[in-house]
Structure formats: C-alpha cells, structure tokens
C-alpha cells in the first residue's frame, strides 16, 4: 500500500484527540503520530467550561499540561444536591459532597474549554504531524495497517487508527459499528452567568421535574450553567430576552447566588444517551464521544473521554515498547475490556439519575428522598460515589493514578 506511513493516526482534534496526541508523544520519543481534523487547528471560540474530575486532572498533571490550565481553573470544593417540585419555594438540601478526595486535591476543577484547547495545542510534540483541514472518505483495515483515504487524494497508513471524531463519528460508521441510543426528548441548555454572591467553590445540582439543573463555579463571581428542559420549553427560553432568562434562573436557584446576569445567550443541544456496541473494530479504537455520549447531568462526558485516553495510550505504548502491533486484536481487546465496564456504569448511573429525578410523582419523590438520605448518612457509599465520579480507581490506567506510562 502506498501513502504516508505513521505509527498511529488520531482522527479528531477536540480535547480528547489532542490529549491522546500529547500522551503518546510524551511517552515515547520518535513515535510518528498523525493528527487529522476536518477543520484547521486553532483555539475555538468557546465560552464554556468543563468539569475536570480529580483523577482525570492527574492525567493533565502527569502530561505536564496542568500548570497551563490551572491559571484559569476554579476548584469545586463542595457539591450540593437539592430536590424540588415545581411549586416549591424552599430548596431543601438532600446531599452534600464535601471537600477534597485527598488532602489538597479538590473533587473537581472547572476549566474554560478555550484554555484546555490552547494548552494542549501548545503541548503537541515535534513528532505529531497535523493534517488539517482534511476530510476522510474511506477507512480500510488491512493485515498490517489500516488505510485512511482523504478527500484530496492522499492516503494515510497506520497500524492503529483512533477515532476521536465525536458523537457522529464518521469512522465509526465506516467501520460498521452500530450504536445503542436513547433520545431523552429533552434539550440541554448552556450559559455563563455573573452573580451577586460568592459561590464559595460550590457546585449546585437542583433536581427538578423537567430535569437536572447544575451550576458550576468559575473564577470570580461567575458560574457555568447546564440544565435540561423539554424541547419546546427550551426553544421558548431561547427566544426570551436575557433579563427574562435570568429571572427564570433565579427562580430555580432560589437565593443561593443572589441576583444573576447572563454573560451570553443560551446555547442548546439535543440530549441523548448513545453507546457504541463495540469500542473497537479491526485496527480501530473509538474514544470520547465517538464511543459514548452520556447525559451531562453529572458532568462526566469529557472525563469519560479522557479516561479512554489514559487506557488506550497505555495499551498502545505498551505494544510499541515491545515492538508489538498496537492494532492487533489482543491489544484492542485489552482497551475495550478496560473501558467498557466504566462506561456502562457511568451511563447507567446518569441515565438512572435522570429517570429518577425527572419525575414529579409524589411516591417517587418520597422514595428518592429516602434514598438520598440513606446515601448521605452512609459515608462508605458516598465515598464510593465520589471516588467513582472523580475517576480514582486503584487498578486503573497509570495516567489516572498520576504515574507515567
């Protein structure tokens, strides 16, 4: 086969694909990495922020990129979960996750997406060859390498292709991997607010019948909001003037943050749960949203993708170190085995939370209030949930444990 040969080809230059390229480049000198994207590489204009869980932050620390992100990061020191019916005025507190997963290590950090992209782009090693803008028109797995055909006629050969090309992954489709999907018939709404009172590093999660509403602390008296509404209601809200939206937000949040002003208009996206039936195909591994899209309720979407990176980078580097084929069936199986359980668990937990909380029937509310009360009074269960959400597991990938690959 003719074409440019690489050791690994990563398709998709979002935070997950970029982290993959940095992780591989840092772990082995001289590894020939192709990073391909449909759009030219530049720092996106994106006002949003992502919650980076403690375990996942360790990946960034280990890769030497955390210092660049820390400048604009806000630690989440506690998480307060409330449950309220539509007409309730008070915001009863049912669950409170306090403090740090380890001394000096907060549960999570909010990092502006722009800063994440900028830091990762700056950290790409000399061995990463950027191929963009480039449209992929074909993927063929061969006995020793996979071939990617580009729209401009070029071909790229690599023993392993990594699909980090998002929820509508073209590579996933080309490899005939099906997805299991559930449409929540809801929209996610996102915006950034300024508020009168200090958030004190608190993330609030209000469970309402229409779906969860989360406020995540940003530097200063600012917070990032993510919440869900029915499709029609979401469109109504988007059509309102910003002041009116601010009033709606204050109504949900009660008095916690005082008066609220929107920094930008509402952005919306359809909510769905989508998990690929397989995370691998011959010479192909799916990571990030290409593998799974979960409900944003727990802020775990990007974290799951970065955990994929930690697992797959280790599997690939282990193979390269021994001169073995990183795209061979046994290597891919090791990756899939490592990530599948965690993804299934996280999808079920978030999906379960949505179903449980998006419900205004009194007995259901009574039951979940009881459940939350039990969780709140049993430190081991709470610890387990916190550690799980923070991505801390003892036998997980090395990067997640803060170790070099």
């Amino acid at each position, binding site marked *: 086969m003719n074409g440019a040969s690489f*050791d690994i080809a990563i398709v998709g230059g979002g935070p997950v694909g970029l982290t993959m390229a940095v992780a591989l480049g840092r772990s082995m000198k*001289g590894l020939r990495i192709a990073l391909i994207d449909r759009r030219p590489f530049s720092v996106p204009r994106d006002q949003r922020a992502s919650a980076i869980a403690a375990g996942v932050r360790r990946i960034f620390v280990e890769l030497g990129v955390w210092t660049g992100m820390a400048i604009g990061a806000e630690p989440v020191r506690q998480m307060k979960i409330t449950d309220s019916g539509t007409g309730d005025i008070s915001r009863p507190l049912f669950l409170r996750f306090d403090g740090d997963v380890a001394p000096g290590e907060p549960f999570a950090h909010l990092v502006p997406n722009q800063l994440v992209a900028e830091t990762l782009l700056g950290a790409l090693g000399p061995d990463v060859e950027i191929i963009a803008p480039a449209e992929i028109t074909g993927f063929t797995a061969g*006995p020793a390498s996979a071939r990617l055909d580009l729209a401009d006629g070029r071909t790229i050969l690599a023993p392993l292709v990594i699909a980090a090309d998002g929820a509508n992954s073209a590579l996933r489709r080309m490899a005939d991997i099906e997805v299991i999907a559930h449409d929540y018939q809801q929209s996610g709404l996102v915006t950034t607010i300024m508020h009168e009172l200090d958030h004190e590093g608190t993330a609030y999660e209000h469970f309402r019948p229409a779906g969860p509403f989360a406020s995540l602390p940003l530097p200063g008296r600012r917070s990032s909001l993510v919440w869900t509404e029915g499709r029609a209601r979401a469109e109504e809200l988007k059509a309102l003037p910003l002041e009116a939206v601010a009033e709606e937000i204050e109504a949900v949040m009660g008095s916690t943050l005082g008066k609220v002003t929107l920094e930008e208009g509402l952005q919306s996206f359809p909510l769905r749960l989508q998990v690929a039936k397989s995370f691998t195909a011959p010479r192909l591994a799916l990571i990030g949203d290409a593998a799974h899209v979960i409900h944003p309720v727990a802020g775990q979407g990007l974290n799951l993708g970065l955990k994929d990176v930690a697992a797959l980078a280790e599997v690939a580097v282990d193979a390269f*170190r021994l*001169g073995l084929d990183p795209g061979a069936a*046994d290597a891919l199986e090791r990756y899939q085995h490592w990530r599948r359980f965690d993804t299934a668990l996280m999808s079920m937990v978030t999906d379960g939370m949505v179903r449980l909380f998006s419900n205004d029937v009194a007995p259901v509310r009574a039951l979940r209030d009881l459940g939350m009360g039990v969780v709140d009074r049993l430190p081991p269960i709470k610890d387990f949930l916190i550690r799980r959400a923070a991505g801390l597991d003892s036998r997980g990938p090395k990067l997640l444990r803060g170790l070099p690959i």
Partner: protein
Amino acid sequence: MTDTTINPDEIAKFAAMADEWWDPTGKFKPLHKFNPVRLGYVRDKAIAHFDKDSTVRRPLEGLRILDIGCGGGLLSEPLARLGATMVGIDAGEKNIAIAKHHAEQSGLAIDYRATTAEALDATGEKFDVVLNMEVVEHVDNVPLYMKSCASLVKPGGLMFTATINRTPRAWALAIVGAEYVLGWLPKGTHDFSKFLTPDEISALCGRYGLKVVDKVGVVFHPLSDEWRQSRDLGVNYMVLAEKPQA
C-alpha cells in the same frame, strides 16, 4: 521474487498458515500470550547491557540479533520493529516460508533462513544477541546445540535461553495442564525427560565460555490472564548469559 520454483498453491497455503500463526486469538494464542513477557525481558536486558536509550521507539538499533527456532517470526518481527537487525533461523522450511510471507506483509526486512544453529555456526557468523527461546527442550544433542549457540555470540554479547524446568510441578503444568487439560499445546509437544534445570543450563553456558548473569521465572497469572516475571524458576524460566570481551 527471485525464486521461480515456488509453487503458487504452496504460497497460498503458507499465507493461510501465516494468518493462523499471527492470529492472537487463534491456534497460537498461548504463544501470543507468552510473547510480551519474554520480549520485555529481552528488550530491557539488551538495552541495559548495550547502554541503549529506553525512551525511543527503536531502542535496539545497531544490534544484530539471531532468533533460533524463529517459527512464524513472533519474536523476530517485534525485535525488528524495535530497530534490531534480525536473522531468524528455523529447521522447518515451512516455518521460514510462513515467516518470510508475514514479514513482507508487515513491511519488515528480516533475514530468514532455513538452517540450524550448528550449520550457521559453521559459517562463522556472529551476533550481538542470540535468542535460544523454547528450543533446547526439543533438540536431541543438547551439548552440541548449546556449544553452537554460545559460539554464535560475539565477545561482549548476550545469549538468552528460555525453557522449562524438570520438576514435578513442570510436568503437571506444562505437560498435563497445557497439553491435556487446557489444550494450549498439541499433545506430545513436550517430552518431560528432555527438560533441563536452570543449573544444567548454567553449567552448559559455563562450559562453552558464557557467564550466567541473571535467571528469572515466568509464571502465568490466571486472573489477569497474563504471564509475568517471577522469582519462581520451578516451571518456565529464562537464563541470561554474556560472553566476556575477548
């Protein structure tokens, strides 16, 4: 192709057999499972001995390595990817044809020859590293074989020997377990009386001018489904010997 006497049907047959050899989930799965631990040992010890850089993609660049009993090339190909100049020999013509076919497919230049250690030694060729992995338990004249292997090592070079110990546990695991219970290996693969102890291997190394510098056991961990290095030399083990500088 220069050799025009090769029959196309034969090539097709070897291609099919190569696919079988190289399918990590197929007939040779046990060998694929075993491969990382021995590759890791060879890589790490060679890097340390020859003072190579362990952080690069091709750390074994500049080393000439001989793989005795190379089979389909399961050790030769990875080591070639790590930068070594590989020569693979096997007494079986079929294995050499399979290995050649696969290396070509992988885009790797490996010098495969259908010959024996004794015949190669007679030509006077020398190597930085000689791999004598899972062979000695199959040969008839062990002293002659070990003498040839040792002679193929350059002064200052290394020889790796991997084999199975002659203990009741080895009989239970490597013959009863692997051949009869688990079906990992075809029945009759191993003959217990031909197994050698680490002391016997060490004595043979010493007799032919090599100094044993390390011994390590290899043990299967069923829960993680992988082989790992161990201090237990009771069943599978590897011996590293070096030839002093002239």
